[in-house]
């Protein structure tokens, strides 16, 4: 049986009286993938940051594997892996060095490093400095970092941003592999084809509000087998 990896209830975020995320409910089982779709400023990133524990919610509750951040943040932190959308890495270090650093901070044994390096295909580059890696390789590195310690929930913020088609393909493969291993994943994207290929659940967001949500299968049924891209166009431009 599948168990609940993420349960979000009434989650809301306001900045100075301005609501950026209206109350939202989400549920995710292990082995499921949820895609948050929407344009810039839709509130995707904020929702993920709240789940990752970076941003404090104004209202609502978040449970990852039945655990809340407020109750036990250390345990909570061990249950998630987070991939930020953009940040500067310490590029003077080698892939291996930096990954080991993250592993130690996650209290994860060293062998994990080899395991995730293999998963993201960075074994051959492991002794190169991050400086010499391409953007795609660096994305893989950040992804590898999130996977350290096999967390219950992977939170990926725009994992496919600025990637070449080859890496897009391998990303899809990786998500599918992880799904097979019963991994729960929540990610944001504006590449709707990626969502279409990987997601079980899809949430369309616009200006902090949920426009449409449901399992991919339900939505397909509802929208006469339109692709997500077509659904998006209909949702935002034809109503």
């Amino acid at each position, binding site marked *: 049986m599948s168990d609940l990896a993420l349960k979000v209830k009434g989650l809301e975020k306001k900045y100075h009286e301005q609501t950026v995320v209206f109350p939202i409910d989400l549920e995710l089982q292990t082995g499921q993938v949820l895609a948050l779709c929407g344009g810039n400023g839709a509130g995707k990133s904020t929702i993920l940051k709240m789940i990752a524990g970076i941003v404090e919610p104004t209202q609502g509750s978040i449970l990852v594997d039945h655990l809340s951040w407020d109750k036990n943040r250390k345990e909570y932190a061990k249950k998630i892996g987070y991939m930020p959308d953009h940040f500067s890495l310490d590029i003077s270090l*080698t892939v*291996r*060095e930096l990954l*080991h650093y993250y592993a130690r901070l996650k209290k994860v044994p060293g062998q994990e490093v080899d395991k995730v390096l293999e998963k993201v295909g960075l074994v051959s580059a*492991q*002794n190169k400095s991050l400086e010499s890696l391409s953007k795609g390789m660096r994305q893989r590195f950040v992804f590898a970092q999130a996977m350290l310690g096999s967390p219950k929930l992977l939170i990926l913020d725009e994992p496919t941003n600025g990637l070449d088609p080859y890496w897009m393909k391998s990303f899809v493969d990786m998500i599918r592999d992880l799904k097979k291993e019963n991994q729960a994943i929540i990610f944001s994207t504006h590449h709707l084809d990626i969502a279409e290929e990987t997601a079980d659940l899809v949430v369309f967001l616009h200006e902090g509000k949920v426009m449409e949500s449901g399992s991919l299968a339900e939505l397909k049924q509802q929208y006469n087998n339109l692709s997500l891209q077509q659904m998006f166009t209909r949702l935002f431009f034809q109503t």
Partner: protein
Amino acid sequence: MLQRMINEASPGDVIKVPAGEYSGPIVVDKPLTVQSNGAATIRGSQLDPVITVLSEQVTLDGLKIIHQSPDKDTRAILVEGNHHNLNNLTIRTDGYGIVLRDAHQSRITENTITGNADRPVSERQNGIDLFGSHDNVIANNDIIYVHDGVYMERSEDNKVTQNHVTNSRYGFHLMFTEGTILSQNQSEQNVTGAMVMGTRETSVRDNQFSEQLNHVYAQGLLLYDVQNAEVHHNVINANLVGMLIQDSKENRIYQNHVAANFIGVQLLNAEHNDIFENNFVANVVSGQAQHSAFNRVQGNYWDSHMGLDLDGDDHSEMAFRADPFFYTIVKDKPAFQIFFQAPGMVFMENLLKSDTNLWMTDTAPLIEPVTESEVENRSSSLLFIGFSVLLLLYSFYFIYFGGIRKYET
């Protein structure tokens, strides 16, 4: 018993004091020689001096004198009259050591005078104390733990030479004297090496005044209200203030070596002095001066001064000026002395240089020291080399193992 021997002797006799303990007070009132090979000890613990020397031509030689008294204003030896000779005495005193009152043309030589180290300096008295006593020679005495080593007041033409004073208040203290010669003496670790006050025609030469710095008002040599003094060839080092010259005029100060003091020379209201060919080296601050623009200061070597010699005469065309800025501030509000050598203060002094005409100015400072100080080729201690190596190892360790070395498998 000793007194009886003296009473029974006729003038001109030589009394050889047998080894042993004697008790004072003893009075020698006729020309006699009282001597011992150091084995005779005379003790006194009364208000009277342990030995009083009167009359003429008395010689005391090789005696040991122990003077104990709760009252500091008592004396071990009191001398009056002329042509005496006090030689090779070992004196331990709670009050004065040797006191000369109207005693002239006497010689005080090779004595050792020790005060009471357990008492604070203000509760001790002077080692050798002259008042109204002229033409004496005070030489080769070793003085320690007293108030002032050699104190002279209203006395003339005395020669003080090759004495050594330490752990006392002032090494040599001259008040209202004339024609004093202070030469080849040493003063160390006193509040002031030589305190020369209200004197005329004093000669201070070839002395060494060092390590007067354990007091907030410590200095090597102080001239206050002094005229016509010749101060030369002295070595003045490692004092709080090397030379302090105040309210003094018409003095000649030359060829002194003033080194490693906190402040090299201070001139306050000093005018018309000749200050030349002195070395001022390694002082934290070379010179401070206030109201002292009108001195003839020329051809000294100031190591803090960046000189420039264009015409090749070994003198800089750029004048050295003593900045009164800090001194002026501190004079009014001594609390600001805490900014001595504060980086902001030094920065400020370099920024604000106005009205330099009224500063003490060496118009032609030397480019090189007057006499090349012995090249100090000191070998470093093993401790020092070890420490340097340790620091390097520490840094290499972290740079290599902590930083550069890549973590590989």
